[in-house]
């Protein structure tokens, strides 16, 4: 988790050593997204963050190449 300006970001980091099974970002499946959203909901309610901007980002790491996708699956 990180803070970017007004946003609290939930960041999923994925690593692949080769692209033989697709890029790391592709490995963020629907199920994973649901899990992250549930996690976010739990975090918001437990910390009472109801009036905060939330964002989901994905960091994909391919060996030594790192890239950040902001708002990867917001809406």
């Amino acid at each position, binding site marked *: 988790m990180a803070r970017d300006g007004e*946003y609290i970001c939930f960041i999923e980091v994925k690593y692949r050593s080769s692209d033989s099974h697709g890029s790391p970002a592709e490995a963020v499946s629907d199920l994973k997204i649901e899990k992250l959203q549930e996690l*976010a909901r739990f975090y*918001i309610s437990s910390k009472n963050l*109801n*009036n*905060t*901007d*939330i*964002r989901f980002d994905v960091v994909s790491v391919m060996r030594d190449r790192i890239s950040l996708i902001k708002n990867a699956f917001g*809406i």
Partner: protein
Amino acid sequence: MTISIGRSFSLAGIDAHPVTVEVDIRRGLPSYTTVGLADKAVKESKNRINAAVKNSGYEFPVKRITVNLAPASVKKEGSSFDFPIALGILQSSGTIKPGRLDGIASVGELSLDGNLRRVRGVLPMARCLKESGLKKILLPEENGKEAAVVEGIDVIPVDNLKTAVDYLNGDKSIEPFKLDLQQEFRHSCSYREDFSDIKGQYMAKRAMEIAAAGGHNILMTGPPGAGKTMLARRLLTILPSLSIREAIQVTIIQSVAGKVSPGSSLVSRRPFRSPHHTVSDIALVGGGSNPRPGEISLAHRGVLFLDEFPEFKRQAIEVIRQPMEDGTITVSRAADSATYPASFMLVAAMNPCPCGYFAVSGRECTCTAVEIKKYRSKISGPVMDRIDMHIYVPALGKKDIDSLDRGETSNIIRKRVIEARNIQRERYFREENIFANAEVDGKVIDKYCRPSKTASGLLIDSMEKYGLSVRAYNKTLKIARTIADIENSEEITEQHAAEALQYRIGDRQWDL
């Protein structure tokens, strides 16, 4: 965080209703929800709006977005809400300055690159705008002319989302679209076809003239290639041109059906619809789960031509019986009902038998009596009874064609038709909804269509001899009235009645 309120319209039948588009944006888990009885096309707008906003160079807010289309109890359909929703989102997220959407309506579909696409039903929406007291509407450029038909409102045509935002923020000015209705209306009616294209067929042409003058329905019977279709297509050329009031009605129907061509305004020609005989009854009268006008409404104030009449599905023909009498059609569905105007001239064409050559000299008919009976019985008695004029269009040989002359041009015939129509308009000025002889109903027929003594005697004798119904008698009387009007005669004489009778019982020669 903030809420924005915009205005738009939804369609029901041929009327538009005001819809308030509310967009609320607040902090929290990013989400996008549309509420207010929106159909699939409205819900899908989310993806179009997202792409259009980003591709126009603006930020799409990563927030909780709720879109409400009020009144929430009215069904909303179609893509015309893309634009107002996008404007709402841009105002709520601060791109458009506060208050700039007040009193301004908008409609339009967005493409992914932010350009605006034309939508259907803009003319009734513009009328609704005026009625609801608003002054200004933003819409796609291609719809501009159509909406500008309504006077007293500012129609602002925009080509894409960015232009709209700049306009609303005051960074750019756009002149309201102005249309000179009279000018628009004047440059209009010229036809490629003409009655003088048809050689001979004087009888049929005369019948067409009478039908046009009185607004009568007509059925043409004849062998293939006799010129039935040619005659029908040229009927438009002898009908009087539309009045502005009629033109607006016609344009509204076409607008709702999405049939107004891009960049055009008023439809100035009478419509001519000739659906194929495989047409379904819904396509003919209108309907569907989201009701749309059918062929009979698209032919409003024009001609509905049904070629190969007996080939139509029986159900399809029967459903036009009631609109033929009433001039309107109400389509009722479980969820919805819509009323469309459907005042049209029915022109039908058929062959005398399945092979087409029954009683044609020089050709042998190969049909059996049973086949012919079956073919003709596809059109029920009640439908036949409702068609005022029945004529026979004979096949002409090559020799005849060469020796016959072309006859009068459409312009000359139209002049007579217009004169006859003027006489009728004056006669019926006190009656509501009666403009032509064909529309005279049983209540007032005795008042306006009084035959002379001899004419009356002839009609009553024929009625008995040929077993005509009372309706058939009335129709004959109305045709006689029209013939008298063409000849500028106050009285319906025996001669007029005799000619009218001929159009009513002329097809008896076909009886087996």
